[in-house]
């Protein structure tokens, strides 16, 4: 009996964790979408006609079971990459994505070499 209870709660816990992983947060998507007719506002911040329509479309797509990526892909196809604040990695912005890592690695290498040199003295 005890084993059955443990299995039941383990399964329940696993299902809850899975549900959390697969649920799509509409607010997170709204915040990452640019309101194309507003100045410097996201869809989440705006009450314009455009933002209201996009909110409805995103909610519909979430209800249809679309993933966050699929929703972004759909909107990028219709409005271009400009609609998302965090653009996906591609050929054009590859350098921009790489830059922080490159600075981090180069900085780390410089510090390491300096320390090594100091220790050798």
């Amino acid at each position, binding site marked *: 009996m005890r084993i059955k209870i443990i299995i039941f709660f383990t399964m329940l816990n696993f299902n809850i964790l899975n549900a959390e992983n697969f649920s799509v947060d509409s607010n997170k998507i709204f915040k990452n979408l640019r309101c*194309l*007719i507003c100045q410097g506002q996201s869809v989440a911040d705006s009450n314009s*006609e*455009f933002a*209201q*329509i*996009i909110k*409805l*479309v995103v909610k*519909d797509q979430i209800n249809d079971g679309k993933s966050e990526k699929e929703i972004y892909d759909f*909107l990028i196809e*219709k*409005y*271009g990459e*400009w*609609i998302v604040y965090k653009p996906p990695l591609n050929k*054009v912005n590859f*350098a*921009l994505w790489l*830059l922080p890592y*490159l*600075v981090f690695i*180069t900085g780390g*290498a*410089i510090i390491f*070499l300096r320390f090594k*040199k100091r220790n050798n003295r």
Partner: protein
Amino acid sequence: MQKKIIKLSIILLIIFIIGVFFIGLNKNSIYDTKGLVGQKITEIKLDHFSKNKIITAKDLSKNNFTLINFWASWCSPCRDEHPILVELNKEKNLKLLGVNVKDKKNNALEFLKDFGDPYDDLARDEFGKHSVNFGIYGIPESILINQDLIIIKKFIGPISKNDYNYIKDTVRKQ
């Protein structure tokens, strides 16, 4: 040797940063429709304004050219472009599909009664959700497509006299 490596890394990093800024600042950050031209419209499912029917891609592929016009009775620039649409209705190779967006049915009908009905077919987008499939972000906007449903041009804002000439020339070339 180590100093040389550090110097070279710093120089390369500076060149890289300048390069990134150069590409970034040269990129047009304003939304335009260049990306849409040449794209095929695949998902067309519009509710007919008065009939219990859905307008699909199949309906539009029967026409040589279709001008899909997104409008509403509450939109004042739509009144400015309306006489041009009435003129365009005379073109043989062109069919006009009006999409009435976020509007009251009665107001839309009154608008067409007052200013004329240029549309060969009229659809209704009650909540504006279908217009997202066409990359619409304001009203009025129009899209000229050919028989293969490929976007030839997108007109943001009311159709001007120049746009009228462009549409006329394009459909007459066929």
